[in-house]
């Protein structure tokens, strides 16, 4: 199945070098979890601070159990703030 995978701010460097912008489209196995994708791209767990699926916040405790489905957009930020 296909999902959208986005890394932002300092995590951008963990995306493939041929990326355009901050999003890549991925082919993943059925039932893939957020933690699996974080590991696949070598994103340090503690840097994956803000995790959103389709814009909805996913608490850290659910990253290993939350299964992605076709068309999901997974977006991850390190600790950030502004104003």
């Amino acid at each position, binding site marked *: 199945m296909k999902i959208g995978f*986005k890394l*932002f*701010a*300092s995590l*951008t460097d963990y995306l493939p070098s041929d990326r355009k*912008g*901050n999003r890549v489209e991925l082919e993943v196995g059925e039932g893939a979890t957020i933690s699996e994708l974080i590991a696949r791209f070598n994103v340090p767990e503690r*840097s994956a*601070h*803000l995790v*959103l699926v*389709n*814009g*909805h*916040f996913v*608490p850290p405790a659910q990253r290993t159990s939350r299964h992605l489905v076709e068309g999901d957009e997974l*977006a991850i*930020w*390190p*600790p*950030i*703030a*502004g*104003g």
Partner: protein
Amino acid sequence: MAWNRKLLRVNLTQGTCKEEPLNMEWANEYLGSRGLAAKYLVSEIDPKVDPLSPDNKLIMATGPLTGTMASTGGRYTVSCKGPLTGAIACSNSGGFFGAEMKFAGWDMIIFEGKSPKPVYLFIENDKAELRDASHLWGTSCWHTEEQIKADHQDPLIRVSSIGKAGENQVLFAVVINDLHRAAGRSGVGAVMGSKNLKAVAIRGTKGVSGVKDFPAFLKATQDAKKVLADNAVTGQGLPKFGTQVLMNVINEIGALPTRNHRDVQFEDAAKISAEAMHEKRPTDGKTHLITNAACFGCTIACGRISQIDKDHFTVKNSPQYWGASGGLEYEAAWALGAANGVGDLEALQYANLLCNEQGMDPITFGATVAAAMELYEMGILTKEQIGIESPFGSAAALAKFAEMAANGEGFGKEIGMGSARLCEKYGHPELSMSVKKQEFPAYDSRGIQGMGLAYATSNRGACHLRGYTVASEVLGIPVKTDPHVTDGKAELVKAFQDATAVFDAAGICVFTSFAWTLADVQPQLAAACGPEWTMEKLNEVGERIWNLERQFNNAAGFTAKDDNLPPRLTTEPAKTGPAKGLVNQLDKMLPEYYKVRGWTPDGVPTSETLARLGL
């Protein structure tokens, strides 16, 4: 004591500058800066005064930590009754001017009356005098600063000034210091202009004396700096990406107000984001961002210094804009960009440069352009009236509006009224995205419920810096709360509002609160000002400041009816994203908020609350 214990009272009508002792009884109750200035203002002006009349007063104030070695201790505030809102105004700025005021030996400057001719105030330590500014009137903030330094043959003078916008009394004119730091909201620059006060120039060489317990202060400030350095947000995220890092986050959660809040997500958000500022431009192979920058004493350094593409249509024939300069910060990038549907980063920076050069608030300016673009798309405004085709997304229209508003030309004069008056004039007051006539910043309260309450109850009109619940509702600071629910938001908003008032009053930057709590500030204040500055006292001072500001607004004629949001946000559901189908449920939160505040159902502090706070 880290106060200098003296203020300067400048009577512009009479042309006099007089030293007065600072009211230390009030300093003990309101700390400094925003709090203490509010106390002086409330005590000295009629709340119903015309903000642009000589009877309004303008106060520049520092806090006890301003100018000290506390991180971010460079802040000062500009307070008055605001001409955009009619409410109490207090705009906060960084840079180096505030610290210089403290170094010259002053805690505060109170301006009253109106000068018969343009003047600027020159301060050199104890010496203070009004000088002729006729050669500066009609020029920009950038020129004014350069000229004053040249006139005095001293490049170390720090300058706060108004540009043409303040002179023309644009209702969202700002006071600019250090070229691109701004006391930015509510039109404090217009009040300065109404007094024929062009600038304040200060050279201070005294340093800050009187820190109560210096060894303890040294330790407290070092400990607190370590907290900032070790925190991933203040130690890494903000220095590298600045506030602009929020653009993609807020868009992703569906709370990025777009096209005058018609939409909550912007298809070109990525093009105007922090990440885009780091990318090389296809046109010249250079990045938009040149470097980050810090204000006085700041160990975060979130500021952006950028360089516009010299071949961009906005500046191709204007080399004066080719140099590196301030911006873009998130609020400006949103207001000039997503709010208008403009996804051209260079055009946003051009408009931002004009705002800094001539002294305009880019939030209210951009949001007013958004309202004008909606009126244009509805056929209410025409190309003949405006001077240019102005659909959403037009970078050319944005640039033209910025030029016209900055110079007070043509339709720019109408932009200069702000969106509430503009929309009222053209028969659609509901299209002004504002509270108390001040425009929203960059968060749509349909997707972040608590911000709706924070906006509605902000004492200076819609504002993110009076109660930034985005930190909790979106970013998880200090704890994550659900942005779509209303339960608990009354308490959350009150907690943010009261704590922020203390950060402001202390003379430090509110961005420290991404890493610090009041428990990190308290040891610094106790060492600087005395052990009586306990956590309990700080919490009380924050709440006291909030209630004092509220009392001023109530006396000025505001009521609970003004604690409201435009109907678009409470009746038109978000169209896309995670908040799709939601409106802001202010009606659920507001009664609870009044209760938590100890106010009547009509939004008036009860006698018990006033007595508890010593008001």
